[in-house]
């Protein structure tokens, strides 16, 4: 005769093995996530600590730098006050010493053609000084050619006279005062 069995429990019977496996899975997942969290936070903390220490030392360096800069600026102002005039005078002398009359004479020799003659020449050792001269040429086109060569040097023609045998002009130019 067949025997009939009834389950009278209020809820479904739980398979203990499957349930344990699910719990184990959840537990492992939680463990893994926690490990990632701990690793992340530890890494960030290490980084933070290193950066904070660098920033502290940088801040100290910056502070030292600012103090040094201030002190140096003050000393520079004092030194300038004491030595600037002497320095300016020394530079003025050096500038005048480096003014070359020879380079100006060489320039004039190159600019003059064979039929030309410099009758009078006046030179002054000043940066803004002009080179004044009186020149004569056998032909007018030689004089014009000479003018053309001098045009880049602020040429100023004072006068030009036509004589029986030659043409004469008074003019001035300005050449930069460095050695050539």
């Amino acid at each position: 005769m067949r025997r009939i069995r009834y389950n009278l429990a209020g809820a479904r019977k739980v398979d203990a093995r499957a349930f344990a496996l699910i719990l184990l899975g959840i537990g492992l997942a939680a463990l893994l996530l926690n490990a990632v969290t701990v690793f992340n936070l530890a890494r960030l903390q290490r980084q933070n600590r290193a950066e904070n220490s660098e920033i502290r030392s940088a801040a100290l360096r910056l502070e030292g730098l600012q103090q040094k800069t201030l002190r140096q600026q003050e000393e520079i102002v004092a030194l300038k006050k004491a030595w600037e005039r002497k320095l300016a005078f020394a530079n003025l002398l050096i500038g005048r010493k480096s003014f070359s009359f020879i380079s100006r004479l060489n320039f004039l020799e190159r600019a003059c053609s064979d039929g030309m003659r410099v009758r009078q020449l006046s030179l002054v050792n000043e940066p803004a000084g002009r080179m004044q001269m009186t020149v004569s040429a056998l032909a007018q086109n030689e004089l014009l050619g000479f003018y053309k060569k001098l045009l880049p040097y602020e040429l100023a023609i004072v006068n030009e006279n036509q004589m029986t045998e030659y043409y004469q002009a008074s003019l001035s130019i300005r050449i930069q005062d460095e050695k050539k």
Partner: protein
Amino acid sequence: MKKSKLALTAMLALLFLSVAGCLFSLVFGQWQDLSRQHRLQTFRDLEGREKAAQVLEAEYREWRNLPLVLQKFRRDNILSLDEFAAFRRDLDARLAANGLQPPRIDFAFGSAREGLRKVTAKFSLTGSYRSLKKFIFDMEAKSKMHFFSSLQLNAEADRVKGAFSLEVYLGQ
């Protein structure tokens, strides 16, 4: 059954907390990265300031050395009174070497400025253009602090007449 539900709920809560913690650590890391950018900017500022400080340091050193440099400049280039006598002998020698003979040389002693006294020598010379130019060249080649302040050349037949003004600086 109640116990198993409780255990499941507890484990799910733990999982939820773990997920939240993990997300927090990732978000916190990103936030820290942004903050790091800001701190790096501070470092860049520091580098800029250090470069500016180096420039200032170089300028400062130059100003500190200036008294020595000026002292050396004076020692090397400015004539003393004893050297002035030698300079006059040398001037005569240069003139003679180029076949030039000035009728007279006038020396005018000026007032002192910045510890230096200006002496102006004026003289006129007559000779060939070549010899006058050679004389100017010789005088310009000297390292001591003397130089022509002006010169005027006038052509006369085959000779040139030149009026020279020469400045010499003497140390006190």
